[in-house]
């Protein structure tokens, strides 16, 4: 249950916590959700920073963060205007006209993560000399690793988060995690990199040649031969140079990874899982919840985006079969009628066209009822292990969110009390 005074967990997080990690699979609206939550926090008077990974161009434009600056920029957040889209069920947007963040002392800062620049900064921080920095930055494997390797982006998102929390002076830092299939990479990436840097095979490779020939096992020699045989000697040379370049930096990386791990487990850090009701998104969200459980990390709030609206008035006792039955009959009569139609019977022909339109609209309603019920079921099944106040459903909006007004509307749906 949320702390006293808040209607939902999300409101409590927005108002009280200092770190919010938005996770979930790709394509569920994570970036937009992160930005809207950050906006809600700024509107409630907090100094907030959102780290986005890959925002849509129009959203980036709206936030004024186009281009990879890798340092937060303050966003003028203005005042929300009343909702203008025709339909945003089931929650009404609550807007307090005239209230602006500056009046309540809140600020919104935003930045777009530059993975390579963040990694470069990290190298500069822990390298022993400027010469070592240059050697690493020029290494071909480092170049690949810092821009292309899956997991690096996740690691750097965490790295940036840590830096902003430690040094940024924000009340709340919201981080959008990268859209990978294995959404847990961001938790595992720091230790994976360290495992990589410390792998005993490479420690052996780093030894002077003759000593290593004497010291290493047959398997290791076979391994080294394999790598150079299969991948070419140059790659092995690059690898050796790479590990030599990083020599002595493991300790710094280690300490930092440990501190990041503590930050993840800090009671002031909250995890918000973003999903959509689509089966594959729900499956991944469920799997993700289990994996986080194994890490001893609990998800505080679930945001379900793009939940289909319900059109039938509440309490209407009409089944999908009822609707399909009516549509079937209307269509069947049309087919039967068409066969016996005569030119003289034009009034009835006009009637048939209208009948077909009616059938199509009823069928369409039935489709929407079907998906709306399925969406509700899927979301509540996923949320069943959490308290009801942990689940926030955001209806499928008729407009994409691509400007500040859209973000304000979304913020109003996510945390109406903030």
């Amino acid at each position, binding site marked *: 249950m949320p702390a006293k005074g808040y209607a939902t967990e999300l409101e409590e997080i927005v108002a009280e916590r200092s770190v919010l990690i938005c996770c979930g699979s*790709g*394509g*569920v609206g994570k970036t937009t959700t992160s930005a809207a939550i950050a906006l809600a926090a700024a509107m409630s008077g907090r100094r907030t920073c959102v780290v986005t990974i890959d925002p849509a*161009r129009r959203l980036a434009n709206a936030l004024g963060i186009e281009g990879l600056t890798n340092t937060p920029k303050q966003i003028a957040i203005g005042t929300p205007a009343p909702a203008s889209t*025709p*339909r945003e069920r089931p929650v009404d947007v609550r807007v307090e006209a005239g209230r602006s963040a500056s009046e309540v002392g809140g600020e919104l800062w935003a930045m777009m993560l530059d993975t390579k620049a963040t990694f470069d900064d990290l190298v500069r921080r822990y390298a022993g000399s400027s010469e070592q920095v240059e050697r690493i930055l020029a290494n*071909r*494997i480092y170049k*690949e*690793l810092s821009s*292309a*390797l899956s997991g690096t982006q996740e690691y750097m998102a965490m790295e940036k988060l840590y830096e902003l929390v430690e040094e940024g002076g924000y009340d709340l830092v919201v981080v959008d995690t990268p*859209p*990978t*299939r*294995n959404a847990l990479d961001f938790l595992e990436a720091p230790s994976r990199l360290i495992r*990589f840097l410390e*792998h005993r*095979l490479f420690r052996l490779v780093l030894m002077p040649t003759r000593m290593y020939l004497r010291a290493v096992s047959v*398997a290791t020699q*076979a*391994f080294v031969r*394999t*790598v*150079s*045989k*299969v*991948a*070419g*000697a140059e*790659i092995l040379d690059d*690898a050796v140079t790479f590990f030599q370049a990083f020599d002595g930096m493991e300790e710094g990386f280690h300490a930092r990874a440990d501190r990041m791990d503590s930050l993840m487990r800090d009671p002031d850090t909250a995890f918000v899982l973003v999903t959509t009701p689509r*089966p*594959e*998104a729900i499956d991944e969200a469920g799997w993700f919840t289990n994996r986080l459980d194994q890490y001893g990390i609990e998800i505080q709030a679930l945001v379900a985006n793009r939940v289909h609206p319900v*059109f039938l*008035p509440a309490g*209407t006792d*009409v089944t999908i*079969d*009822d609707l399909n039955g*009516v549509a079937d*009959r209307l269509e069947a*009569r049309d087919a039967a009628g068409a066969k016996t139609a005569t030119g003289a019977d034009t009034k009835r022909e006009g009637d048939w*066209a*209208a*009948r077909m*339109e*009616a059938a*199509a*609209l*009823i069928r*369409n*309603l039935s489709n*929407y009822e*079907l998906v709306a019920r399925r969406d509700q079921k899927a979301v509540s099944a996923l949320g069943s292990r959490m308290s009801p106040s942990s689940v926030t459903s955001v209806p499928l909006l*008729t*407009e*994409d969110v*691509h400007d500040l007004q859209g973000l304000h509307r979304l913020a109003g749906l996510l945390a109406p009390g903030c």
Partner: protein
Amino acid sequence: MNFEQFVTRSRVLVVAGKGGVGKTTVTGALALAAARSGLSVLIVELEGKSGLRESFGGVGPLGYGEERLWPGQPDSPGELGAKDEPRSGGVGDDAGSRKGEVRARRITPDDALLEYLSDHGLKRISKRLVSSGALEVVSTAIPGIRDILVLGKVKQLERRVAADLILVDAPATGHAVTFLTSANGLLEAARSGPVRSQAQEVVELLSDGDRCRILLVTLPEEMPVNEIIDAAYLLEDKVGVSLGPLVVNSCLEELPGGPVDASPDGRSASIARFMAGVIDEENLPRRPLKKLSASVAQAALEAGAFQEHRRALQVEQCGRLKEELPLPQLRIPLLFDDQIRIAELAILATALTRAVSELH
């Protein structure tokens, strides 16, 4: 254009796009459409996911060995146990392709790496490499090597003419761009050795439009459209691939009778009258519905207006896509069904065949 001509313009078609756009569904529908037009089809799945096999009525993920998905039902996974281990010489490569059949197999990077090591006389140590974690280190140190091995295997299948059409369901992880450009990246890093020649051959396959084309799948929504435009230009510039038409998935269909206005008017009354009429005449389906017909009719109009509004947004996105990416679009409908089964694949296969027949 004739569907058979369309799909056989190159033997390999790579179906690519971001996660969630329906790549696997499109792959299944293309395979079915091609098999129905009399071709032999081999689907290569790269992630060991179960969706494809289940769409064709099977249970669980595909194995490394080839199996038939259609016609008939895939076997249960238990019966596949023996074929599941990749071994030297490419077990399961020779199940044989028959006209009018969809066959499928899984090739994950680990499968491909183990087979590669076996083929290069390193079978004995390959197990030890796995258990010591050395393979993880190698593939971390040499980014792209996994993608190269998988694509190298696809190239081998293409060379051996494993089927009339080889459909590759590209990985959802990250951008398809990374997967398809890794060969070029490795060419720069490795200046000699078997990995370089492998990368060389993969680049040759990918950049030869008579052998291989990329079919990009997207949704008619803002973010997916942006991403596919970026991906298309990157792929053309970096790899020089041939891009086939764009597949735009989940398109909403137009309702008959033009724009829908949800404000109460004569139309709502007319729908209610039709409903009441058919319920009266046929005594169908339940009496209470008749009493509610006015509010149901109103809800139907509101749902119609919602649908029309979203469809207008989709049309706008398709237009923008057309403007920024001058490639033909194959639009296939959104299905409201819960799961994609063979019946749904058949609907989409028909839609694809029709869309192809309207090309040029």
